[in-house]
């Protein structure tokens, strides 16, 4: 039985009031949306807060505008409402598949897109109860002095855990951040930092208010796919994910391509070479093999989640190949996904 520590809970009804509340609270204030990441982390005492500022009482922050040329999703839109939106599913199918793969149906009724994009990085030595962590004298990410994954490392290697981040990065999504004193818009990919502790370029007092996905990334303009490797077909986090988007002209010649890997780094890892290899050509088995080879070198699976790190590395080759074959309309090779991903 895990219990939350005492907290002061505030639930402002405007973004401005929430931004002010987080800016003026004591140092130990945190934002919460669905709470499906923050509450378990606080129950296990590896995230701490005296004051928690909830965003869930702000009307309309959960709206989804999928019919607009550029799709707009409010930060507190629940994952369940995202996959229920027919227009969104038709226009951004790989994004819908990624969201439908997150957690479980009851958790998706609470978890939000803003919370998913800001979700804490994860590690076997960190996502444990206080007693468990105390027994190993904690670790660098919280309360301790050593990284148990790489004991000589001065930095934390906890892995990015968001399943919507890789596909939204591949689709060129932007996010809007609002604080008490400023507001800015930045490419989602720029919000991430490859560091297990300071994994966000967003300041703690900045509220992510909306996600914007350009119309040029919808299914009329590009083909996209998302694959996720995990032990069970539900509840489990990714131990590797691959998301890609490919734009072609009328002759099927690639004009642009983008790919990100999840769970094999502290940030979604871009496979930038995909653009140079594919652009100017039709998609081919050789091109796909070349990108799979490059992605294998970029992926940095550590011994910090389920499955052997070396096997997750090998599976990067298989999953990148599978994602690109799906996009190219080629039949899958003998390897099958452990779990078929679809929106039910």
């Amino acid at each position: 039985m895990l219990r939350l520590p005492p907290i002061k809970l505030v639930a402002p009804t405007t973004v401005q009031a929430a931004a002010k509340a987080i800016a003026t609270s004591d140092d130990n204030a945190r934002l919460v949306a669905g709470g499906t990441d923050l509450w378990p982390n606080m129950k296990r005492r590896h995230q701490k807060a005296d004051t928690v500022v909830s965003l869930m009482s702000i009307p309309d922050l959960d709206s989804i505008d999928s019919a607009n040329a550029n799709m707009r999703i409010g930060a507190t839109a629940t994952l369940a409402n995202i996959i229920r939106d027919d227009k969104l599913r038709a226009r951004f199918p790989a994004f819908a598949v990624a969201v439908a793969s997150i957690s479980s149906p009851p958790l998706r009724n609470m978890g939000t897109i803003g919370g998913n994009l800001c979700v804490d990085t994860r590690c076997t030595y960190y996502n444990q109860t206080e007693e468990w962590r105390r027994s190993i004298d904690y670790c660098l990410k919280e309360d301790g002095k050593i990284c148990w994954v790489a004991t000589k490392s001065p930095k934390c290697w906890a892995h990015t855990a968001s399943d919507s981040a890789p596909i939204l990065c591949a689709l060129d999504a932007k996010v809007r951040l609002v604080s008490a004193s400023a507001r800015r818009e930045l490419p989602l990919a720029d919000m991430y930092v490859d560091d297990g502790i300071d994994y966000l370029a967003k300041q703690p007092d900045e509220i992510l208010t909306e996600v914007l996905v350009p119309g040029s990334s919808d299914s009329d303009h590009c083909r996209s796919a998302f694959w996720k490797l995990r032990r069970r077909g539900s509840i489990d986090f990714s131990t590797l994910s691959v998301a890609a988007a490919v734009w072609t002209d009328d002759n099927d010649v690639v004009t642009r391509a983008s790919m990100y890997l999840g769970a094999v780094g502290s940030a979604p890892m871009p496979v930038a070479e995909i653009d140079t290899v594919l652009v100017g050509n039709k998609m081919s088995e050789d091109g796909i093999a070349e990108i799979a080879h490059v992605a294998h070198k970029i992926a940095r699976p550590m011994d910090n989640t389920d499955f052997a790190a070396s096997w997750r590395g090998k599976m990067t080759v298989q999953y990148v190949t599978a994602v690109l074959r799906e996009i190219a309309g080629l039949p899958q090779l003998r390897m099958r996904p452990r779990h078929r991903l679809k929106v039910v």
Partner: protein
Amino acid sequence: MGEMNIEFNVNGKQVRVSAEPNKTLLYVLRGNLGLTGTKDGCSSGDCGACVVMLDGRPVNSCMVLGPQVEGSSVVTIEGLASNGELHPLQRTFGETWAFQCGFCTPGMLVSCYALLELNDHPSREEILTAIAGNFCRCTGYQAVIKAVEQAAAELRAAKGGAGND
């Protein structure tokens, strides 16, 4: 922070409780209201033993804070039976041996109830998806699927629909 007054509806009855803001809905249901049908398995969203309906949707009550349900309507396992009659799902769970130790059953039943409220003709895939947040260490899930199919057929028949097909 001191206790907060929370007023909400549980299984059709308006209730008023007083709880600190760090108390989850699961704690309020079990501790304040004595509704111990809902179980605390993991307290961290992993198992689904604590699933209840909140404003018509299944949620993990270990992940919801008490003050968040102010003005809402909650249905727990205790609210499935009506007028002393078990809900068809509760009966078919018994008939098909869809539980053994029974610890997952309250959450499992509420997830299945939520499905049938929206869809009384679910496919096997839809049933599997509906229970994808409910861990069962005993049954292997097959009997649960059978129980839901049987209850759905009964509900359709009761509505004068196609019946068993």
